[in-house]
């Protein structure tokens, strides 16, 4: 396989179908529309299902139906569309069904704008629908990582029978970069044991998301919590740059992670011992590794394209081990490396700077 110049949205779409996505349902919204458009051509070419739904509400419920039938299925949208999907996401999570949702985040709240943002951090990690659960959330920082995480998203979804959200921001969706696509996988020959395929020669299968008795609903909730505990145990992922001898740490994910790396490199060139910690899974938040790093640094700067959402997870992970500071831009504004350098210079203790 060779590298080709690919737009993020197109790369995610192509990676998804190569990972075995059999059915896609979506509704146009910038900055993710190329994803839907790519699949509008490719899925029928492969004899698979593509359908433009009448709304995001319908799209996620079509995904719910396809997931009940036991195929790999996905939808994609951007922030306001993800808000509309919340009911369906909650039902899917409560039905123990795998599916993948791509959120190419844009500026908000409200209609907001079509520029890159990370303001959905709470929405995707905390409040992707009502009830006690979290989706698995993956945050790519490059087109190549978007491709790799798309494949991983389908595998994790099936492995845990759980909802996985790929949280990319508008920059990842819109930018073109060389990336290598995964090989085309064969579709599974058989449907999973829960799939609603018609009760031929077997007892009926039933999928629902409710128990009327408190005891039963609580027991079921405990099962979800046990699954989430396994996910937290096994799936924390992050990347580190210059952390070995870092005395101060920047924490940023997605596009911000990459911009922060430029800032860290500039400071390193000037002999300043800073490092970067880049969460790849936003849920489960890579708290174990961050906590270990926090023991050895004088302070932490969290940078996000929002008003400080991951900041809460960083604080919970770090507790009092190191002071945690924040720098953020909102509304589609993207921080420049120089801004991050400036913010760091103000925070760095003189002994670290000199």
């Amino acid at each position, binding site marked *: 396989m060779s590298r080709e110049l690919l737009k993020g949205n197109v790369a995610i779409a192509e990676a998804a179908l190569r990972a075995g996505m059999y059915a896609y349902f979506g509704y146009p919204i910038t900055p993710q529309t190329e994803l839907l458009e790519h699949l509008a051509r490719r899925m029928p070419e492969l004899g698979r299902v593509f359908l433009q739904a009448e709304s995001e509400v319908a799209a996620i419920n079509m995904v719910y*139906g396809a*997931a009940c*039938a036991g195929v790999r299925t996905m939808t994609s949208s951007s922030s306001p569309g993800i808000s509309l999907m919340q009911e369906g996401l909650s039902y899917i999570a409560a039905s123990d069904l795998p599916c993948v949702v791509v959120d190419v985040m844009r500026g908000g709240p409200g209609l907001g704008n079509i520029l890159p943002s990370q303001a959905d951090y709470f929405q995707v990690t905390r409040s992707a629908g009502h009830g006690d659960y979290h989706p698995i959330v993956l945050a790519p920082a490059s087109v190549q990582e978007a491709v790799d995480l798309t494949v991983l998203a389908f595998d994790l979804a099936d492995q845990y029978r759980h909802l996985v959200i790929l949280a990319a921001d508008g920059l990842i969706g819109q930018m073109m970069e060389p990336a290598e696509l995964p090989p085309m996988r064969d579709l599974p020959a058989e449907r999973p044991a829960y799939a609603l395929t018609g009760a031929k020669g077997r007892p009926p299968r039933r999928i629902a998301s409710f128990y009327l008795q408190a005891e039963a609903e609580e027991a079921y909730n405990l099962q979800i919590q046990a699954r989430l505990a396994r996910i937290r145990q096994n799936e924390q992922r992050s990347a580190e740059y210059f952390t070995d001898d870092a005395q101060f740490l920047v924490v940023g994910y997605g596009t911000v992670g990459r911009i922060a790396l430029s800032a860290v490199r500039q400071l390193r060139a000037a002999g300043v011992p800073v490092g970067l910690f880049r969460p790849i899974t936003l849920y489960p938040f890579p708290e174990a590794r961050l906590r270990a790093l926090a023991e050895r640094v004088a302070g932490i700067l969290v940078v996000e394209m929002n008003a400080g959402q991951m900041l809460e997870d960083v604080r919970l992970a770090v507790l009092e081990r190191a002071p945690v500071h924040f720098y953020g831009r909102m509304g589609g504004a993207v921080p420049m490396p120089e801004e991050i350098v400036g913010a760091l210079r103000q925070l760095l203790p003189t002994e670290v700077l000199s």
Partner: protein
Amino acid sequence: MTDLLLEATTSHMETVYCMPQALSAQPTHYCPGCTHGVAHRLLAEALDELNMRERAILVAPVGCAVFAYQYFEIDGCEAPHGRAPAMATGLKRVQPDRIVITYQGDGDLASIGAGEILHAAARGEPITVIFINNAIYGMTGGQMAPTSLSGQRTTSSPFGRVGEPLRMSELLAVLPQTAYIVRRSLHNPAHIRKAKKAILTALKAQEAGLGFSMVELLSSCPTNWGLSPAEALEWIEKHMLPVFPVGDYKVAEAVKEL
């Protein structure tokens, strides 16, 4: 002697009434006199007669029929309020050879799910919709539905409904890709027999891939209408039938040939 007698009697016995295979043995939770149960039985009989039990998938609604996915001896699931046609679309698109059925109340289908039903019908999605119109929100205790009659008193229209009911069969029948849209009633045996025939036709239309099919069934809710079961059936005849005439609103040419 007795044995011989017994043998003689049994050999002449013929089963004229039994539980359809497509119904599960579970007792339902429906109120006495509620025709949800009649609708269940008709659908189950139709599935049996068409040999569809082992390829059918039911999408239950939010409403009094929320447990319908347990009451049938077929694969089933339960959709968010109003979203059954979207879920059914997902189920059907990935396995077009299966028979996918939604079962929805009037609040579910005509109010919160008005968008999903309209677009499923407009796309000609080859699913079958069993639409239970009881002119009220049964499950939540008798609030006004989009199908409530003008002047009808409900817990949320205590002074009588202002406005006119939505007539879904008439509305959807104008869409070119619908194959079969009819309204029937469950208030007496003659009408019930016609309802059964309509369900059979709708399922056959789906099997033949002819497009979207819907059977609207006028149904009773004695509990929330504040009537006895017998009075409730009379209420359908007297008050609902004039507003919701039974009839064939769309029968595509290909369906007539079935």
